[in-house]
């Protein structure tokens, strides 16, 4: 099966001498929902820029559904829809014109483009604002406009660079649902995000890039399974005077009504609650101390820095 994206020994050295990519290799399967994570300046946007031809590569190869960007650039471009990190539309243009013009650049006739614009603007809740200039939209609407614009030529590969940055929770959730739907319909999606919960929830596979090198490339499940333990925070109904023994778990009393419990991988959480009940401890609520992926991410990046 031809990969949706195949990068081999991809290198980028900017004119100022900074090496943004040290020969990375990456493959994304067709139909995948793939996360590309990394700290600021790691090389995520440079990678996306090269694939979408906004950045000239220094070396290596990049193929989109088998089309080499050196020899079949137009065919490769036709496969990609790009949602960049920063707003990059003409703020004075009406919403619907932005979509119809974009479709035109892909050779899609205006009457077809209007139909698609109506469909995607409706799906993303922007149809009522179609005649407004883009500058009149809220931040969340602008993000959704960029997604609609990226989809108007119906690409096989959708690349989203921080698509939910600055978007409120409700809209973020609706965007997640929308992206899940179009992925289920067959569109391959590559997502970069700083919301690691977003990557964990949406993506099946993940690569972590740091200092221009891929430091991890695996499935999300495999990565999460590597966690040796995770920490639960319990809010108690009544103050606790002494810490009871909890066999198999490591407990830490934060204050009178808060406990932190380290849960080893594979441990049965039910036994924890049985033990707590046996000591008359009533739990009001519980939550993960940190996002699991976030812990892994910090661990991977810090380890890399430690060995550099």
């Amino acid at each position, binding site marked *: 099966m031809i990969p949706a994206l195949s990068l081999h020994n991809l290198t980028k050295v*900017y004119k100022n001498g900074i090496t943004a990519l040290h020969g990375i290799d990456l493959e994304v399967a067709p139909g995948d929902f793939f996360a590309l994570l990394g700290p600021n300046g790691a090389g995520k946007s440079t990678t996306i*820029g090269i694939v*979408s*031809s*906004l*950045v*000239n590569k220094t070396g290596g190869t990049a193929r989109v559904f088998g089309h080499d960007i050196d020899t079949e*650039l*137009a*065919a490769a*471009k*036709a496969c*990609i829809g*790009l949602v*960049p990190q*920063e707003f*990059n*539309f*003409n*703020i*004075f*243009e009406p919403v619907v*014109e*932005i979509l*119809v*013009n*974009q*479709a*035109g*650049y*892909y*050779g*899609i*006739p*205006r009457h077809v483009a209007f139909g698609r614009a109506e469909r995607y603007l409706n799906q993303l809740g922007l149809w009522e604002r179609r005649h407004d200039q883009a500058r009149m939209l809220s931040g969340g609407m602008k993000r959704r406009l960029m997604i609609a*614009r990226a989809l108007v*030529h119906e690409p096989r590969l959708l690349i989203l660079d921080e698509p939910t940055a600055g978007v409120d929770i409700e809209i973020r959730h609706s965007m997640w649902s929308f992206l899940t739907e179009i992925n289920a319909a067959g569109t391959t999606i590559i997502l970069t995000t700083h919301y690691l919960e977003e990557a964990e929830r949406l993506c099946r596979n993940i690569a972590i890039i740091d200092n221009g090198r891929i430091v991890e490339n695996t499935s999300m499940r495999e990565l999460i399974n590597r966690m040796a333990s995770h920490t639960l925070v319990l809010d108690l109904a009544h103050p606790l005077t002494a810490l009871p023994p909890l066999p198999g778990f490591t407990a830490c009393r934060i204050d009178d009504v808060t406990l932190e419990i380290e849960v080893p991988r594979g441990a049965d959480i039910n036994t924890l609650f049985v033990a707590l009940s046996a000591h008359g401890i009533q739990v009001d609520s519980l939550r993960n101390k940190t996002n699991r992926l976030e812990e892994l991410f910090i661990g991977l990046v810090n380890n890399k820095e430690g060995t550099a």
Partner: protein
Amino acid sequence: MNGRAQYIAFRAILIKEVLRFVRIWIQTILPPMITTALYFVIFGRLIGSQVGDVHGIGYMEYIVPGLILMTVITNSYANVVSSFYGAKFQRNIEEMLVAPVPNYLILLGFIGGGLARGLAVGLAVTVVALFFTPIPLHNLWVAVSVLVLTSLLFSLAGIINGIYAKSFDDISVIPTFVLTPLTYLGGVFYSVSMLPPVWQSISLANPILYMVNAFRYGLLGVSDVNLGVAYLAIVGFIVGLFGFALHLLNRGHGIRS
């Protein structure tokens, strides 16, 4: 992209460019009409009445071709340089760069927008001129071809300026310090035969002189320069600037990192 898809892409860029200046017609179409009307009132009627005939033609009538062409030059240039730099500044040029539209179509789309504004404003200014003086038409084909070619030439110059520009200052330097002096010294308001011989020779190095006089020939049938030389100069510049602009776009100068 096949031929039909390329045509659709070109049309999309052209429509975008035309709608851009039409949407802000108060900034793009109206000011040149008012400025030209003032030129006619001050230079044509008040000062021109003291100047007398030039080449046997009334002064007001004599300056009409130059004023129309000057407007076409400045508007074609301004349209493309501001639109292209604006697209760079807002980064919406990336909408085209990520699409499979070839660079030569991007170039043609932008200069098409410059041509459209140049001709629209040229027509508007001609209508204004008709309120002040009748405008003869000596040779329609020469007049139209020179107008179109000149507009194309300065649209190309505008896009090159836009490609190199790194700030809004950069897009006003060339029009202010190069284009305006060359236009004013290009025989818009006078015949070079009125100048001392040494200045006549220096004036012949000004390419705008050839365009103004070729257009003047098309309307009035008089010219300070040879028409063949004028066409050769204009077409030569167009070919050279088109090649250079396309080379810059292909290299991604100023638009790809």
